[in-house]
């Protein structure tokens, strides 16, 4: 049995999802010879720390009941710098202006030779080159499948599973909020404003939806794809973006009469990184509905490979983090 000591920095939807899957999959992981021992958990105000392993169920209920993970006053950054452990699970909020606390956390982790697994897009979309360099200087593993498409495997698909292929284009739907709104506008023949309100009520859209509906979230994911799969050193400023706020129910109907649906499509290849609403033939593999994500990876040897799945959600996103953790420490 290999014991890997873990910190979870950021304990919102995704951080809690990680804690849940580590509890639920304990036996599964033991069969792989892996024992992930969480030695520290932090949210924005408090921390729970135990070098013999934090009781994750207790931390989950405390977060539920009291809104905090523990009584310790150590910050996430202090945990990374002072507590000895192997891997930092970085699940703090995305900040695409500065990279936010996530960037500091990741750089500190690499400085101390720790591995990092994250769902936090901000630092990767802002400072990809710097992070890669720091990871390699620290001799650290750095995995971030969860940043693009949640549970839907894209990065590892393109990098590992399709190894040997050259990837010429990646195109798809990378934002579940926009897909939900557009799908519902078409179904109900309702306005953008009405279906945004519905999405907010159901928790599919944030109170301030700008980041999703203006295509910025999709742009960040494309930047990560461009850097990771196409070897660029792009930031979100290199992306041409238009969002879904101007789409009308009439346009969706007219499109439907021509055999199309309208989807917010992100596309990346050697020559461009672009986010825009596009017409997708109704029977095309990219025409998935609801809040699903989908990606079509164009390869030289295998042709197009298309995957679809849930692009967000607590446990769904945690599943991508868990799979990255396993891939680092297995064998």
């Amino acid at each position, binding site marked *: 049995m290999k014991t890997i000591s873990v910190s979870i920095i950021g304990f919102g939807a995704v951080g809690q999802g990680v804690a849940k899957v580590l509890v639920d999959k304990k036996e599964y992981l033991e069969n792989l010879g892996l024992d992930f021992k969480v030695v520290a958990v932090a949210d924005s105000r408090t921390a729970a720390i135990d070098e013999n392993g934090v009781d994750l169920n207790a931390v989950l209920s405390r977060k539920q009941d009291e809104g905090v993970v523990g009584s310790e006053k150590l910050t996430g950054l202090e945990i990374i710098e002072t507590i000895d452990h192997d891997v930092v699970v970085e699940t703090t909020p995305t900040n695409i202006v500065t990279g936010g606390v996530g960037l500091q956390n990741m750089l500190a982790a690499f400085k101390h030779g720790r591995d990092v697994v994250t769902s936090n897009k901000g630092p990767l979309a802002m400072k990809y080159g710097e992070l890669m360099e720091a990871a390699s200087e620290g001799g650290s593993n750095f995995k971030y499948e969860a940043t693009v498409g949640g549970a839907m495997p894209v990065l590892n698909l393109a990098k590992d599973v399709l190894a040997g292929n050259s990837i010429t284009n990646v195109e798809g739907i990378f934002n579940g909020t926009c897909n939900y709104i557009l799908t519902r506008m078409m179904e109900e023949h309702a306005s953008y404003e009405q279906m945004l309100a519905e999405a907010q009520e159901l928790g599919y859209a944030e109170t301030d939806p700008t980041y999703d509906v203006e295509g910025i979230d999709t742009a960040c994911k494309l930047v990560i794809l461009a850097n990771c799969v196409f070897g660029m050193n792009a930031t979100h400023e290199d992306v041409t973006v238009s969002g879904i706020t101007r*789409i009308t129910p009439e*346009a969706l109907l007219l499109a439907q009469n021509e055999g199309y649906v309208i989807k917010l499509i992100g596309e990346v290849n050697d020559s461009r990184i672009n986010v825009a609403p596009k017409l997708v033939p109704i029977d*095309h593999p990219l025409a998935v509905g609801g809040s699903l994500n989908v990606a079509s990876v164009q390869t030289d040897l295998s042709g*197009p490979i298309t995957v679809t799945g849930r692009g967000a959600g607590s446990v769904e996103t945690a599943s991508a983090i868990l799979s990255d953790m396993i891939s680092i420490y297995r064998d």
Partner: protein
Amino acid sequence: MRVSMDIELKDIPGQLLLALRPVSELKGNLISVVHHHEKRTPRGTIPVQLVFEIKPDKLNDIVSRLEENGIGIARIDEKRFFEHGAVILIGHIVHTDIQDTIDTIDKTGYAEVVDLNLSMPKINMASSASLKIDAVSKEHLDSAITLLKEIAREKDLLVIEPIKIELGVN
């Protein structure tokens, strides 16, 4: 332009050559010849379908040379536009001079707007339209859509174009 032509040949040797020669003499580019040797018209002739590219002003010459050679012409179809595309426009489409938007495409000579469906919900609200564009080739269709996007930017219209289908399937 591209022409598709049904002709009828007498069932004697050398007739097909007689039919094809005018096309090459007038610098046409032969694309396909479908020769139905087992079939016969009621007149006992053999039906053949030719498709070729030719400068528009040379088509009449071809027709007369074929007739001089004693070859019957059953049908001529001029096919100019081979690519069909659809786009959606959103914005103040009418107020920003829709005729001018369409004219810009039609004036190219290689593409034209063949259908327009307009949906105007309420006064002062953005309207939506679907436009069908025919073009001489795929490249010309792409240029027509690029041109449309340029006009649209000036007029603050949103253009929604189809994904590049061949990237997704086949």
